[in-house]
């Protein structure tokens, strides 16, 4: 499930893109430090742990020693990430040698964590005040319902009876990358939109959150505050009530939007009101490090290309319709067939075979999840074959070379291009060759040298 990682990493890139002063401000909160640490690649996490009690700068060369030579690239990725997020600060001494020191605030927060363990961002409201809290299953159903409602509205604003209260301008921001609308035509799902629908819930959530935060400035809200609140939110306890009075103004506005998405449930008591984080919220920062889909799957695929989805949700039906022919819908079951036509439709919309197969595997019903392979091999093969059918012609930007002065030179050029893996075609008789476009510059340099 690489999508979650990609989308979530994009979110962290957004955090990394904040100005240094703001980033340092974020590290005042231990929760953000924790969330940031957990988003790192394993090697970077290890470096942090090892440097936790080192106050003096450590030379870069010494850190490099920790890793085996052949994995220097992994080391570089880890260090780059740490420097990008300002967890490691570069220090240069007089001889221009690079050393790294840990961000003081980050270090202090993490040290505190090790001594006392984690803590909660805020105290829950005592149960004597809250009248009746929803059970975990009620809360989950609520979250799912809200989220699906939001998604349905996102892809097809006309089909929803109960609309969310998002302003249309807000909705448009979300739809920006997902729908493509030509003039005088109803907006259609774009390539990105289809891929978005096939993503896992957490990935979708991160995508929406990113749009939400990046549009914050237009609404006159500081994105830093939103980021810190979102990350903090994920450390609240699932199903406990937290008073709205502890929030700042910005957070109070944000929480209403989040309630629309199903991240929190708002409840009104006799005197004050409170919010209850749902699973969507508490999974938010955890999905930064791991794509743990604890959700139970629904789909069974048979070798005869039939598809059974145990679900009553309209959203699921819509998603399945993207790449299969839905044949009947029973109260708890959607039956469909994967056909050539339905798949061609999906490919036309820019969905790839791998995405469809990944979707079928990730959402497999618990009864088939233990089977190897989860989706019958003949079905996955056929899906890939049908996709290949459409890709018989591949376009490659290239350059043709002809009129070589000598056979010798032609052969040298051929060898040079072939050795570098950029040769596409050669005709020894007429002394012509075609080379990938990106290799043109090198080719020119080479030819000039031959002269």
């Amino acid at each position: 499930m690489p999508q979650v990682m990609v989308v979530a990493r994009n979110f962290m890139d957004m955090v990394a893109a904040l100005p240094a002063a703001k980033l340092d401000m974020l590290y005042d909160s231990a929760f953000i430090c924790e969330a940031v640490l957990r988003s790192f690649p394993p090697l970077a996490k290890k470096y942090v742990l090892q440097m936790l009690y080192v106050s003096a700068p450590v030379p870069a060369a010494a850190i490099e020693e920790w890793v085996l030579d052949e994995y220097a690239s992994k080391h570089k990725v880890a260090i780059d990430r740490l420097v990008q997020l300002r967890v490691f600060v570069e220090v240069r001494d007089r001889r221009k040698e690079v050393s790294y020191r840990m961000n003081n605030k980050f270090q202090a927060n993490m040290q505190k964590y090790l001594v006392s363990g984690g803590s909660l961002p805020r105290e829950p409201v005592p149960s004597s005040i809250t009248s009746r809290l929803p059970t975990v299953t009620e809360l989950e159903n609520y979250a799912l319902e809200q989220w699906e409602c939001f998604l349905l509205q996102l892809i097809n604003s006309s089909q929803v009876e109960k609309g969310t209260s998002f302003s249309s301008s807000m909705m448009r921001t979300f739809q920006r990358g997902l729908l493509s609308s030509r003039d005088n035509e109803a907006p259609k799902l774009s390539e990105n939109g289809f891929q978005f629908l096939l993503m896992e819930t957490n990935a979708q959530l991160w995508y929406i959150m990113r749009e939400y935060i990046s549009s914050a400035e237009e609404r006159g809200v500081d994105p830093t505050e939103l980021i810190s609140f979102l990350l903090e939110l994920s450390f609240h306890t699932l199903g406990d009530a937290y008073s709205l009075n502890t929030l700042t103004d910005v957070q109070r506005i944000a929480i209403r939007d989040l309630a629309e998405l199903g991240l929190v449930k708002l409840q009104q008591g006799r005197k004050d009101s409170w919010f209850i984080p749902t699973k969507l919220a508490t999974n938010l920062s955890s999905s930064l490090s791991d794509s743990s889909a604890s959700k139970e799957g629904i789909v069974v695929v048979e070798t005869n290309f039939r598809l059974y989805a145990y679900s009553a949700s309209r959203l699921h039906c819509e998603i399945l319709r993207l790449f299969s022919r839905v044949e009947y819908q029973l109260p708890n079951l959607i039956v469909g067939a994967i056909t050539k036509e339905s798949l061609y439709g999906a490919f036309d919309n820019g969905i790839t075979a791998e995405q469809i197969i990944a979707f079928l595997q990730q959402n497999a019903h618990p009864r088939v999840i233990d089977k190897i392979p989860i989706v019958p091999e003949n079905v996955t093969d056929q899906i890939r074959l049908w996709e290949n059918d459409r890709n018989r012609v591949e376009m490659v930007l290239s350059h043709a070379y002809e009129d070589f002065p000598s056979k010798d030179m032609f052969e040298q050029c051929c060898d040079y291009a072939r050795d570098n893996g950029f040769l596409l075609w050669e005709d020894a008789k007429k002394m012509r060759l075609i080379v990938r476009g990106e290799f043109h510059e090198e080719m020119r340099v080479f030819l000039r040298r031959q002269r």
Partner: protein
Amino acid sequence: MTTTHSKLYADDVSLVVVVVDTNPFFWAGAALPFADFFSHLIHFVNSLLLLNHLNHVVVIAAGVSSCAYVFDSSNAGASGAADVAATLDKASRKVEEFIKQDARETAGNGTVAAGGAASLFSGALSIALCYIQRIFRSGTRHPQPRILCLQGSPDGPEQYVAVMNSIFSAQRSMIPIDSCIVGTQDSAFLQQASYITGGVYMKPQELSGLFQYLAAVFASDLHSRAFLRLPKTLGVDFRASCFCHKKTIDMGYVCSVCLSIFCKYHKKCSTCGSEFIRVMPDLNSMPDQRQ
């Protein structure tokens, strides 16, 4: 594709079972007081939990005549990080209780000779393996397991067979056993355990910086171990204990049927009952060497 490891979480999610030596005979004379050692341990447990919210840590105490679970992060996991802190507090109380309880049992037992008593590592290892098997069999996805032994007291040769059996079953289920020696002498058992299962064996030089060793070496998950320069074992003590007197021996007799090891010549194998008809020559003149 994720089909091959669909039952595993991402690479760096780990289940760490820590086996802690609580042998009072050892800690009474140890260079590092037990309280300090325990705080290093809590730091270590916290840091594992910090690295990944799916990480799962279990601590098992191994006393002189009993073993017990002391801490399990999954008990606290459901309701958040604050509970972990509370559970850790409880863990330290549990350890104290366990030590007292264990002392009573040891006193009642009466067989343990004062001084040089070994901790019950075979029992603790078995508990750890059982726990991991339970995790394997429950749920759809599980983290990558490993065992870390923190041993201080010397090996108990009488546990040889049980320990070796645990090691082999760990090897079969691909569970590495890491060992960190906090005492003064190397442990032949743990050297073999780490060697056979592909874990790391280390004897820190400077015990006051124990956490740094734990964080640098034993906190790294199995996935990133492939990239790291980890301490190498210099040599492994492969000596076995004999089945008849539980002594560690260099040379001995091996039953040709069931491979039981004896330090003296027997007419009949005590394990499988095979009779050795031919009179064996003296051990010193023609030894049957066993590594």
